[in-house]
């Protein structure tokens, strides 16, 4: 500790603190402009000059370290005068072109006023630069307001790791430029907007709402795109969301956001929003369904009561005629925990079926199944910030983190840049993270098990395994080793296409830089061997002893904002909330007693079974909340055919989607900006979503809709539901639903809206109201006791290229769009940057099929369908592999994918299909 005095007050500071930090600690404010706590200090603006007794001249508080006995003055007449001088100099080159500014966060103006200067009196009357000088659709550039604090430069390099901004020229001609003085997007800007968030003067601002003025209110909420769980402030004017601004207190992301989080909100006010319940004409007239199954007839606007009565009648009819298992309930990973809990309760209590599933089936069901079997808990083990601070190496396998979890992708870049963490990327594509990696392992799609087992084989050969960890904390080692022996490096190299020497190098990197954290996403899970892929990764980490310690673990990055929560809430066919198995009698009895009815102990059918089963007549009615299977499920042509045959579908969503063509009743729900509840992020952090604006039109809270349908179905009788502690569907608000969740779900036992609103950051398991939550899993002991070393066995993908379909297709998303695109395709700026599906193809293959400037479209055909789209010739994909996305209906890659399922998790093999491709 270092003792010093500031303004006569004695302060104890850590010896590595700066004067500024010591002052902040003592609640003494020193004016700053170029300083920001998230960025490295630079001492450029000279606002924070303070006088130190005995020092030669004034010193910058932001860069000067404290020393013993320092006597510091932060305010006196001379300092006021010097700060006024700096402010006058800065204002003398500051020009306001007159668009309606949001001055509330203009730090230059704040400090000018603080020191008695009217900024408008001192600012320059002449513009030096063109206003709005960059065509980036999101970021408004006005260098007339730039004070060269370089916060944007540091934000881009230190937070986003992108290095777009820099300073050109020198002296008075210095100015901020993108790249080599080019357009931002050409300088590889990812439009994350970090530069805007850190800009203190409005030189960089949010273009879509540049002229809108200050917000009337700001509501802190959680992003509704990916599983990172960023928090930010929705800015509201006149009951409309006008912009998103960073909230420095956000636990997962701080000030940082990605392009979708910061700019992808305008869908909330899109004119396509469903605002009235819609019912097909035939239902209102009491007629039979039109004979043409592809067209269910006209939509008619109706009252909520009419629509929900029809829904209740139809669901009761299906249940009572064909049995409860003829009804399927598809919940939504986009919706809150509270809404998902009710969907689970609706299916199980009201209908009496375990056919409750959601889109996690299509993304991480293999992770949940694999990790639950191997470790006892199917979730990310370590928080991202812990890995950023403590991991010494990171293996990213089958995750394009930069594009799918951009804020975590940026954290990985930061780990490499700031801590020299050794990053190994294993991916068939040359994804962006490879630029930051020490090694890129480019295995063939569908050979991950061989690759991982090969690495473990080398680890055992070299004696690198953690023997005491294996001895004390795992079981089944002998069987496991027998299997690993079948994967010697040479054979692995043959299967995967990875050179033997690279396998050895990879092992050296991961072993010599312990702890290793492993990340994965869909590249691991979406295979017919998805569960075994997950076993292999869990095995690798157990063999290396990388569990239960900081900076380690197995870290599946969950896709949707609340896919973790939807799984936690029991929207899976085999478990009640909190992964209490429907087949375990004690769990069944517990929920029977809670909900006052008899429950099924038969595992339900998954979304990938429910829809195909329509053809066999096993599925008669579906209640779908916020999902779009016509776009997202594999083999779209077949899915659409099945949905045509379905007797009855009620769809609750915010927009008419590709799936609504097959719906009979369409119920308008609300977006994240209009609801209150919780999302659970990929780190198991439960976070509040807060209502910022009122429901649009007649749209209703999603939980209320489910509750009314439940009450109407119960009122129609046919299923005995008795008075019980949680049998009722009367909830005053979503907080009451969370209280019911906490009562019935041990891992959520201590979670409540009150605690979250009080600012607590809680990761489950959080068993009681005083428990602080569990950021790191498996400390000292695995959830299931001993870790199970399960032999993972390589099997070829279900469809490999052959002479008829010689190319391999793999699929995924791009940074600018989200899944079936219902939200992001309604944000015009996102479409400006990425407006149509592109098929990635290697230059070699492009030459073979004859792509050139004029001929730049391709027709891709698989055994199941064909699509036509523009090609993007790029080295991201190797020869023989093409890549497509499922964001755009007209060229949806899922017309080509195959519904081959993992036998355990029932996840489809999106990641490998055989196709042929021609230029058109």
């Amino acid at each position, binding site marked *: 500790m270092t003792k010093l005095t500031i303004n006569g007050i004695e302060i104890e500071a850590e010896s590595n603190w700066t004067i500024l930090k010591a002052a902040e600690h003592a609640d003494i404010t020193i004016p700053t402009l170029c300083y920001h706590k998230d960025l490295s200090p630079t001492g450029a603006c000279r606002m924070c000059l303070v006088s130190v007794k005995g020092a030669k001249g*004034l010193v*910058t508080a932001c860069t000067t370290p404290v020393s013993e006995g320092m006597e510091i003055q932060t305010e006196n007449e001379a300092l006021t005068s010097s700060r006024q*001088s*700096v402010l006058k*100099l*800065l204002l003398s080159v500051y020009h306001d072109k007159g668009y309606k500014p949001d001055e509330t966060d203009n730090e230059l103006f704040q400090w000018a006023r603080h020191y008695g200067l009217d900024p408008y009196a001192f600012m320059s009357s002449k513009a030096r630069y063109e206003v709005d000088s960059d065509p980036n659709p999101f970021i408004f550039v006005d260098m007339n307001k730039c004070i060269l604090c370089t916060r944007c430069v540091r934000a881009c390099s230190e937070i986003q790791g992108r290095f777009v901004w820099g300073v050109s020229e020198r*002296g*008075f001609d*210095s100015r901020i430029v993108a790249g080599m003085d080019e357009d931002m997007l050409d300088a590889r800007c990812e439009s994350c907007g970090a530069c805007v968030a850190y800009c203190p003067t409005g030189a960089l601002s949010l273009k879509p709402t540049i002229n809108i003025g200050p917000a009337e209110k700001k509501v802190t909420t959680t992003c509704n795109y990916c599983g990172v769980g960023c928090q930010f402030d929705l800015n509201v004017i006149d009951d409309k969301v006008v912009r998103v601004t960073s909230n420095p207190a956000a636990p997962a992301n701080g000030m940082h956001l990605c392009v979708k989080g910061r700019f992808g909100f305008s869908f909330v006010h899109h004119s396509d929003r469903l605002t009235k319940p819609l019912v097909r004409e035939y239902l209102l007239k009491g007629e039979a369904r039109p004979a043409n199954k592809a067209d269910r007839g006209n939509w008619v606007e109706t009252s909520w009561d009419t629509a929900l009565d029809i829904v209740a009648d139809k669901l009761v009819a299906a249940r009572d005629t064909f049995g409860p298992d003829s009804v399927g309930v598809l919940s939504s990973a986009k919706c809150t925990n509270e809404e998902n809990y009710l969907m689970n309760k609706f299916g199980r209590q009201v209908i009496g079926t375990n056919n409750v599933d959601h889109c996690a089936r299509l993304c991480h069901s293999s992770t949940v199944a694999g990790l639950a079997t191997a470790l006892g808990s199917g979730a990310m083990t370590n928080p991202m910030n812990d890995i950023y601070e403590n991991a010494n190496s990171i293996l990213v396998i089958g995750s394009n983190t930069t594009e799918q979890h951009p804020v975590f992708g940026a954290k990985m870049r930061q780990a490499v840049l700031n801590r020299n963490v050794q990053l190994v990327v294993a991916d068939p594509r040359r994804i962006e993270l490879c630029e930051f990696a020490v090694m890129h392992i480019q295995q063939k799609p569908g050979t991950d098990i061989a690759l991982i087992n090969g690495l473990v084989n080398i680890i055992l050969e070299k004696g690198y395994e953690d023997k005491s960890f294996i001895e004390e904390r795992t079981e089944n080692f002998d069987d496991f080793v027998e299997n690993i022996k079948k994967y010697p490096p040479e054979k692995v190299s043959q299967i995967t296409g990875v050179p033997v020497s690279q396998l050895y190098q990879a092992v050296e990197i991961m072993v010599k830089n312990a702890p290793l954290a492993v990340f994965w996403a869909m590249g691991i899970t979406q295979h017919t061997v998805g569960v075994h892929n997950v076993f292999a990764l869990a095995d690798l980490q157990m063999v290396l002893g990388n569990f239960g310690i900081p900076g380690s673990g197995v870290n599946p990055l969950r896709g949707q904002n609340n896919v973790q929560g939807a799984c936690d809430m029991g929207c899976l066919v085999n478990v009640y909330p909190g992964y209490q198995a429907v087949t375990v009698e004690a769990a069944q009895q517990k929920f029977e007693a809670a909900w006052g009815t008899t429950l099924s102990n038969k595992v339900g059918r998954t979304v990938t079974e429910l829809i195909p089963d329509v053809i066999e007549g096993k599925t008669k009615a579906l209640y779908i909340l916020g999902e779009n299977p016509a776009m997202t499920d594999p083999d779209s042509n077949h899915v659409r055919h099945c949905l045509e045959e379905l007797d009855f579908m009620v769809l609750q969503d915010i927009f008419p989607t590709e799936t609504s063509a097959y719906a009979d009743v369409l119920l308008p729900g609300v977006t994240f900006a209009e609801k209150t509840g919780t999302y659970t992020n990929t780190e198991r952090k439960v976070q509040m979503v807060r209502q910022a604006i009122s429901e649009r039109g007649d749209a209703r809270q999603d939980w209320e809709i489910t509750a009314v349908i439940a009450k109407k179905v119960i009122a129609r009788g046919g299923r005995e539901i008795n008075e019980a502690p949680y049998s009722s569907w009367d909830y005053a608000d979503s907080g009451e639903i969370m209280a019911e969740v906490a009562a019935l779900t041990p891992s959520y036992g201590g979670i409540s809206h009150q605690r979250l609103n009080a600012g607590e950051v809680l990761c489950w398991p959080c068993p009681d109201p005083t428990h602080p939550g569990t950021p790191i899993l498996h400390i000292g002991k695995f959830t299931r006791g001993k870790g199970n070393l399960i032999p993972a066995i390589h099997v070829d993908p279900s469809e490999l290229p052959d002479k008829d379909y010689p190319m391999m297709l793999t699929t995924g998303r791009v940074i600018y769009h989200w899944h079936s695109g219902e939200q992001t395709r309604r944000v015009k700026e996102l479409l400006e940057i990425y407006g149509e599906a592109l098929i990635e193809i290697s230059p070699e293959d492009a030459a073979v099929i004859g792509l050139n400037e004029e001929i730049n479209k391709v027709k891709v055909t698989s055994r199941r369908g064909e699509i036509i789209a523009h090609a993007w010739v790029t080295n991201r994909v190797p020869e023989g592999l093409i890549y497509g996305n499922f964001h755009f209906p007209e060229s949806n890659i899922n017309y080509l994918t195959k519904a081959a399922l993992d036998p355990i998790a029932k996840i489809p093999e999106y990641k490998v299909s055989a196709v042929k491709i021609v230029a058109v």
Partner: protein
Amino acid sequence: MDLARVLINFFRVESCGKCTPCRIGTKRAHDLLEGISRGKGTLEDLDSLQALSQELLELSNCGLGQTAGTPIKDMLAYFRAEVEAHIRLGICPVGVCPMHD
């Protein structure tokens, strides 16, 4: 007077542009001296130059900016009459400054 103008121009051109006083202050000082040398100076300019030289010395980040104020300070301390002649009489006593645009 002309030497001060030439020297401050040197510092203006050599300024890296990182810190506020040097980046903007050397430019402002040079503009004022240019104005005086072209017969457009005012007595207030001399006050501004005095203040700028002090700010450059006290507030700059490195030796370059801290030194940049010295020629102005010395000019005002030792050659004030010569400088004032540019302003009050509209002449350059040593016949170097153009005294017009």
